[in-house]
């Protein structure tokens, strides 16, 4: 802004510095302090430093091969996700489709579907009533890869589709008229690949991150393999206690250190790529005449089926009760829903759990939206000033993305034990990880929108002698209304679906959120045939709520939104 041009008084700059520093301080306090306290505790109890415990992973039955398997499945998942996602993104971005917004929402819905619900859906499809693949152990890894691809194709679509759909068509036309572009391969090599590469790589890096830290899917799809995340979940509960199951401290310390290092590297890469990405898509144009796709339905119909079938399977399972006896049979009934609503198999009913979930979601919204706004605004200001701090702070806001839910929950748990155990009884505790996990998404949505905003609009307001508050409420916020609404809804959806951290932190039965309730019902012995449909009913309600929120968000998404979710 005017400051970078000089001639701006020191006081104003000081004021702005505080304004930038404060949200970052708050955010760091939320994210980093619990993790540092947890790290300190683990080192203290185990008596070892992080680099001294790596070998312990190999020495324990439950964690041997975990490092190798974590990397293997994450790399393969990323490859498969790209293979499935790129053709879909290409079709969506390049051709004209009826109801494209709805289609885009449905294809990206898996990303906000709670993993535990999705896992149940995949089980239903792969199980004896579906493709009947569970009898063959060799199919487990492939199933997991497809499940991860299912989750993450949304990332490919969100990153790659805008690059193609906002492309100035003359870019391609010009190339066709040049010798280098007179063949399909030539155009691919000289233009499409360099154009899409940074975006594809961004999607790949994030897919890797999410596959690396995936929990529920690994648990259910590959029951005989452990990842660093499942190891932490298995032994994390006993961590941090002096002279008690010391190995669990070592395992958590080793797993989280490896996870952290890999993920920091990934985020650094992502940040560098995003800068490159914004350079290559700087050529977007308003005008784009999409062509009519002819064969694209051959890609999009299977893609829609792939995205929706696990969700349909969950609903189907909620409506069927096993008739136990010599023959495997089921009958169609609403009894599962009835018992879920009356709370027969759990401490609370799904309606209460939904209320809890919504309560936490609203608390998350109230904090993460203003926090995310302030963070984005601060980064944007620093960027305009050309400050060296812009990039590290940008990465800092993404940090929670790189910290898995389990690690986050453990961090808070072990961290607050250090401060005071009184926090255990505070009902808002479980909202902290929700805030931490949703704020990065808010920033990822608002920051690109702020970058796109014409600075003249704000300078003009300053000329009109509006004060800062007026500029904020009358100019900046209304102009960013779309991204703000989308960010708010995504924050709610992320909060509603969050499981890993809640699972560790939700202590009082009356606070149970829907995902926690689903898990409780899922792990309850199912001798009584009605338990399973009840769990599926809870899962269906969770999924449908998320679906509705997501479809609403899609309506407010600005065209050609290149931001992440």
């Amino acid at each position, binding site marked *: 802004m005017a400051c970078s041009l000089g001639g701006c008084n020191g006081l104003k700059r000081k004021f702005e510095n505080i304004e930038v520093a404060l949200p970052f301080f708050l955010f760091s306090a939320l994210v980093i302090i619990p993790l540092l306290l947890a790290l300190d505790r683990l080192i203290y109890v185990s008596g070892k430093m992080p680099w001294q415990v790596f070998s312990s992973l190999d020495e324990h039955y439950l964690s041997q091969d975990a490092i190798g398997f974590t990397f293997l499945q994450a790399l393969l998942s990323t490859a498969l996700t790209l293979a499935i996602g790129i053709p879909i993104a290409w079709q969506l971005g390049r051709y004209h489709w009826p109801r494209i917004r709805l289609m885009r929402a449905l294809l990206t819905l898996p990303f906000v579907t709670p993993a535990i619900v999705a896992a149940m859906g995949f089980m239903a499809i792969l199980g004896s009533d579906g493709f009947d693949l569970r009898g063959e152990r060799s199919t487990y890894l492939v199933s997991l890869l497809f499940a991860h691809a299912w989750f993450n194709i949304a990332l490919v679509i969100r990153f790659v589709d805008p690059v193609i759909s906002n492309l*100035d068509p*003359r*870019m391609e*036309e*010009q*190339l*066709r*008229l*040049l*010798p*280098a*572009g*007179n*063949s399909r391969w030539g155009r691919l090599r*000289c*233009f499409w690949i*360099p*154009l899409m590469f940074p975006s594809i790589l961004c999607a790949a890096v994030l897919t890797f991150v999410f596959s690396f830290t995936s929990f529920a899917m690994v648990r259910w799809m590959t029951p005989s393999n452990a990842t660093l995340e499942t190891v932490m979940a298995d032994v994390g509960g006993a961590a941090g206690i002096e002279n008690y199951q010391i190995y669990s401290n070592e395992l958590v310390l080793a797993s989280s250190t490896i996870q952290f290092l890999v993920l920091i590297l990934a985020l650094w890469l992502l940040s560098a790529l995003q800068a490159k990405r914004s*350079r*290559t898509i*700087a*050529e977007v144009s308003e005008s784009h005449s999409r062509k009519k796709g002819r064969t694209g339905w051959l890609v999009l119909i299977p893609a829609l089926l792939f995205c929706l079938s696990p969700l349909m399977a969950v609903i189907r399972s909620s409506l069927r009760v096993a008739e136990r006896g010599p023959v495997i049979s089921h009958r169609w009934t609403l009894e599962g829903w009835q018992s879920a609503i009356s709370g027969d198999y759990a401490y609370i009913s799904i309606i209460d759990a939904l209320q809890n979930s919504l309560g936490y979601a609203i608390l998350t919204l109230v904090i993460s939206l203003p926090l995310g706004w302030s963070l984005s605004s601060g980064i944007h200001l620093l960027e305009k000033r050309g400050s060296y701090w812009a990039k590290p702070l940008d990465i800092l806001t993404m940090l929670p993305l790189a910290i898995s839910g389990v690690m986050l929950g453990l961090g808070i748990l072990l961290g607050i034990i250090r401060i005071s155990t009184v926090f255990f009884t505070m009902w808002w505790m479980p909202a902290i990880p929700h805030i931490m996990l949703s704020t990065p998404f808010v920033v990822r949505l608002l920051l690109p929108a702020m970058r796109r905003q014409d600075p003249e609009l704000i300078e003009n307001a300053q000329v009109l002698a509006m004060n800062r508050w007026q500029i904020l409420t009358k100019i900046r916020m209304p102009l960013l209304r779309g991204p703000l609404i989308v960010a708010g809804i995504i924050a709610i959806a992320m909060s509603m679906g969050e499981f890993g951290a809640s699972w560790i932190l939700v202590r009082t039965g009356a606070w149970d959120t829907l995902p926690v309730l689903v898990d409780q019902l899922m792990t309850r012995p199912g001798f009584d045939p009605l338990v399973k449909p009840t769990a599926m009913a809870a899962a269906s309600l969770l999924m449908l709520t998320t679906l509705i929120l997501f479809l609403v968000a899609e309506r407010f998404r600005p065209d050609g939104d290149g931001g992440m979710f």
Partner: protein
Amino acid sequence: MLRVEGAGKSFERILFEGLDLNLATGERMSITGPSGCGKTTLLRCIAGLEDLQDGKIYLDDIEVTNIPPEKRGIGLLFQKPVLYHHLDVAGNLRLGKRDADVHSALKEVGLDGFADRRCEKLSGGEAQRVALARALLAEPKILLLDEPFSAVDEELRSRLLNDTIALLGSRGTTAVLVTHNIKEAESFSKNIMTM
């Protein structure tokens, strides 16, 4: 060289119909007319980026009406220069000719020493000159120019146009210029078609 017979195209309204055009090798021609009259569309049809609804197009007496643009050997300079930002200036020139002598090509358009520049750092006029150099490197049968310098100010525009004319003349390139400026059309060619 270029022959258009009975060309017709409408988009919401009739842009042109029954249009004939004939251009010999090495000849230059200008097309003028008010904005929105279909000049650009005609040029895009000749290049093959759009299809004619009626009529035929011949290049060297071979019908190319249904041949895709990349097989026609035609060059086109868009109104706004199209450069690829993932490549530097030299990289963009090599899209026209893989083993191009980048330095002399740049010298010809008066951009000596620009080879390593990043494209987003170029001004509008500089960018269009790079695009021109690239188009010439490709040695097209015909070069189509769609108001190529409309984005630069008037003084510079006439200088750029004169440079371009000199360049085309020295190479004997067959070229069609679309412009709404009758003075530009007159200085570009004797042959002027008004739409």
